[in-house]
């Protein structure tokens, strides 16, 4: 009689089954959230959910002010990327890497990708120089920003626009 025990709450499964019998389950989807949407997130849910870039910035940095760091961040990107599947990017921050004052993390965010947070690089003073590079996938022409978090919590940002001829996210 374990399953028959009434816990006093209606489970989603039981509710759907009951309404499915009445042909009403479609009405519930907006109420309970789309189950397919959840499964399509799969193992990505904890990493970078699909969201607009403003939501990403808010999730990562809250309401902390982000200063313009164009002077100290060298963001290297092509102006026009013919192939969005491979867009080389490198970020070089001219900041001392001492234990007291160093670059703690570099975030690479592309505004129009479905998951705007592309990569987060956590660095330590042992790096000697805050320099990272990788290849990105960009879905369409977009602004790419590098946000640098210093050890004292300061946030600096540099932005560049990249024109993408053939998108690299469509699979």
């Amino acid at each position, binding site marked *: 009689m374990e399953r028959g025990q009434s816990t006093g709450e209606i489970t989603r499964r039981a509710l759907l089954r009951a309404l499915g019998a009445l042909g009403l389950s479609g009405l519930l989807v907006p109420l309970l959230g789309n189950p397919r949407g959840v*499964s*399509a*997130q*799969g*193992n*990505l849910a904890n*990493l*970078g959910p699909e969201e607009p870039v403003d939501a990403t910035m808010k999730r990562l940095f809250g309401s902390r002010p982000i200063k313009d760091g164009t002077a100290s961040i060298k963001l290297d990107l092509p102006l026009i990327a013919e192939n969005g*599947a*491979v*867009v080389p990017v*490198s970020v070089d921050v001219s900041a001392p*890497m001492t234990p007291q004052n160093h670059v703690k993390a570099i975030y690479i965010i*592309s505004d129009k*990708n479905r*998951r705007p*947070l*592309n*990569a*987060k*690089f*956590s*660095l*330590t003073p*042992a*790096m*000697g*120089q805050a*320099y*990272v*590079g*990788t*290849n*990105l*996938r*960009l879905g369409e022409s977009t602004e790419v920003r590098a946000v640098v978090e210093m050890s004292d919590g300061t946030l600096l940002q540099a932005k560049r626009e990249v024109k993408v001829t053939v998108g*690299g*996210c*469509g*699979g």
Partner: protein
Amino acid sequence: MAEIGRVRIRVPSSIKPGDIVKVRVLVIHPMEIVQRKDGKPVDKNYHFINRVIVTYLDKEVAQFETSQSVSENPFFTFSFKATEPGVLRITFLDTHGGKYEGTADVKFS
């Protein structure tokens, strides 16, 4: 696909103590997006590298968190300060529990 997880690391051939060395590293990995190579959609559980750990002299010097927005066969460059001869080890972890490692010897000439 048999090559998944092969790691290639390149460090400059002549390093002096105290130099800031730029390292390039490449790993063979599909970094799955919406479709698999055979055109079938992937519903969930995408196969991609989500974490890269760099250790030098058995000390962690950097950790990268990556997403599918990084290209197939991901390539990273970074720099580190070579203080002593030793092993630079780079570990890649993917979402299917795979662990791929590459090492490079740091030697002074």
